[in-house]
């Protein structure tokens, strides 16, 4: 099945991105296709490249980049990212900066859309 993902919360503060990551790994193991992860609201902070969490904590930015290496599209909302300072080239690891239309495209292209 084709699954689209919307992430609305930032890293560390909320568990949302951790639940999303564990869900996506399980979905891919079960053979489902992830059509993309759209980062909106504080979700854009998940792509801040300068994160340095303590060694005994997961680096969320890197975990997401690993998903990208496995072919998952990571899409950061341009408006939410600009407002918060998270799409500047020197600051952040952003593969695809896009408008909110991409979120709707994900809804269209996916059998299920799930929000974290």
């Amino acid at each position: 099945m084709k699954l689209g993902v919307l992430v609305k919360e930032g890293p560390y503060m909320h568990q949302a991105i951790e639940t999303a990551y564990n869900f996506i790994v399980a979905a891919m193991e079960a053979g489902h296709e992830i059509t993309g992860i759209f980062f909106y609201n504080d979700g854009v902070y998940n792509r801040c490249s300068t994160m340095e969490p303590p060694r005994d904590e997961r680096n969320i930015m890197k975990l997401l980049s690993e998903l990208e290496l496995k072919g998952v599209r990571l899409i950061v909302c341009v408006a939410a990212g600009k407002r918060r300072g998270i799409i500047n080239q020197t600051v952040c690891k952003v593969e695809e900066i896009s408008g909110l239309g991409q979120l709707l495209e994900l809804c269209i292209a996916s059998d299920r859309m799930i929000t974290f």
Partner: protein
Amino acid sequence: MLHIIKKSPYESSAFSDAIKYIGQNDDVVLLTEDGVYAVKKGGKFEDILKNLMQKNAVYCLLADIKARGIQEDEIVENVKIIDYQGFVEKVVEHNPMTWA
């Protein structure tokens, strides 16, 4: 529909808002993150869950109850425990709506 509830029912209206939207017999509930606190026996939401489960299935996420120290024998009867694979299956079976 799959109603995913992820906030503590003691702290947030997410739980009480969500259960008002469980209308059909094919609606199911998945408690994740702080939402799992609803499953505790002897807690404030035991009766609400029992009432709900007369018609609708209620699931909770294994990783989240473990992290919060909720043991299996502390969970209201008939609430089903699933892992992330089970979570994926529920999303495949039902259209999800997240209550946060």
